[in-house]
């Protein structure tokens, strides 16, 4: 895939210099975790609430901030350059997807630490089991968001539309992710929640394949 590494390196370098996506995502996650504590009236709740809060933070922070790398191309007028370059459309998609995933992964790591602090959990093997679940969720979400953000950026008021498009499609990954996260935080091993991991993997494959195949139909400079 020509252009993939070039575009990805550019986005990562930009992010290293400005940090706008990652830092915003971290702060949004912190905000959402705090609001949920007030809203659910459960300060220092339990592991089940913790996992749920983490996923809510992932979804809504991700909806707002994960696709900055892609949207900035339109705002800066760079999208025409990208489309005229010899880079394949699928390469653009994969590069943007991986960039969004990296930003979300960093934010998830920070959110996980916050979760441990807020919900009085332990740093230990349970977090190690939790990490791949969060990674799979972030990957699927990034795949969906990168595809649908191209729609958002072309419509007036599209940022209001994006959650309505992403969240229902993401529901199975959310269900599976929260269930698996609950199990991981409760100390269960992988085989106890294997079926949820399978569903999460199926969602990831579906979103990645869908995005890869359909991206060229939605990307355009206007």
């Amino acid at each position, binding site marked *: 895939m020509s252009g993939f590494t070039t575009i990805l390196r550019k986005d990562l370098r930009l992010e290293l210099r400005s940090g706008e996506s990652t830092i915003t995502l971290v702060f949004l996650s912190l905000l959402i975790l705090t609001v949920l504590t007030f809203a659910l009236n459960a300060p220092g709740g339990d592991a089940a609430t913790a996992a749920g809060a983490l996923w809510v933070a992932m979804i809504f922070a991700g909806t707002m901030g994960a696709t900055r790398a892609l949207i900035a191309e339109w705002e800066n007028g760079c999208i025409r350059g990208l489309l005229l370059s010899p880079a394949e459309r699928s390469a653009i998609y994969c590069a943007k997807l991986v960039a969004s995933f990296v930003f979300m992964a960093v934010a998830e790591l920070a959110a996980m630490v916050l979760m441990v602090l807020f919900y009085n959990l332990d740093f230990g093997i349970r977090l190690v089991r939790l990490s791949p679940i969060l990674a799979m969720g972030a990957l699927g979400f990034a795949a969906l968001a990168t595809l649908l953000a191209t729609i958002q950026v072309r419509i*007036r008021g599209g940022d209001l*539309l994006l959650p*309505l498009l992403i969240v*229902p*499609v993401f529901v*199975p990954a959310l269900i599976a992710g929260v269930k698996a996260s609950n199990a991981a935080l409760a100390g269960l091993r992988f085989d106890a929640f294997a*079926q949820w991991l399978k569903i999460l993997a199926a969602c990831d494959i579906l979103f990645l394949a869908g995005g890869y195949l*359909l991206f060229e139909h*939605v990307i355009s400079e*206007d």
Partner: protein
Amino acid sequence: MGIKAAHWLGVVTLAIMTAAIFMVFVYVPTEAQQGNVQRIFYFHVPCAWAAFAAFALVAISGVFYLWFGHQVWDDLGCAAAEVGMLFCTLVLITGSIWAKPIWGTWWTWDSRLTTTLVLWLLYAGYLTLRAMADEVSQVGRLAAVVGIVAAADVPVIIVSVRLWRTIHPAVIVTRQGSHGLEDPRMIATLLVSLAAFTVLSAWLLMLRFATLRAAARLTNLGRQLALTEAEMADRSAQHVMSSRR
């Protein structure tokens, strides 16, 4: 697909629907456990069938639109989404009306209800996209992509929601699997009602589709007219220029 064909389909719809209503309210016996409220079942299930079938049609026309590029497929997808949204809303409303006297609650997170709610949200996203993207030139392609992703997601949603509910302790025990229809009259009524709603949704679809096709033809005519006018203005300008020499 003209308006005339739609009129004939309308007549057929009226006939079958009248038969269905008669069967639901007069012919079929009252169900032993639930009483007369159970009759809403004969409207509720066909609405659900219509909603899911329309969604499949949205996805299929999306694929064909991306493949062939002909506006006809986009119009079909749009019409199917609107009809499907109508029936999906009816499923949720009739379901709630049925649930309240039987289960004592308007809503429960039963796997079928939850899946239907998510389907409703998918429809809402699709239609909101169409409404907001009206002035974008390639709204058909965007809508097709959203429709395809959503429809491909539906089987995964069904599986995950079902798994989610069976592991959770059920607050309210619902009848999964077969509907437990013992009396053959009930089965006959259900089949007639299914036929009635299928024909009804096909008729509504055809009406909406014909309207969209007419609008597309009108837009094309408008474009042709503008082109012709421009051509004529150009020619007359050239005529004036050459006659001045």
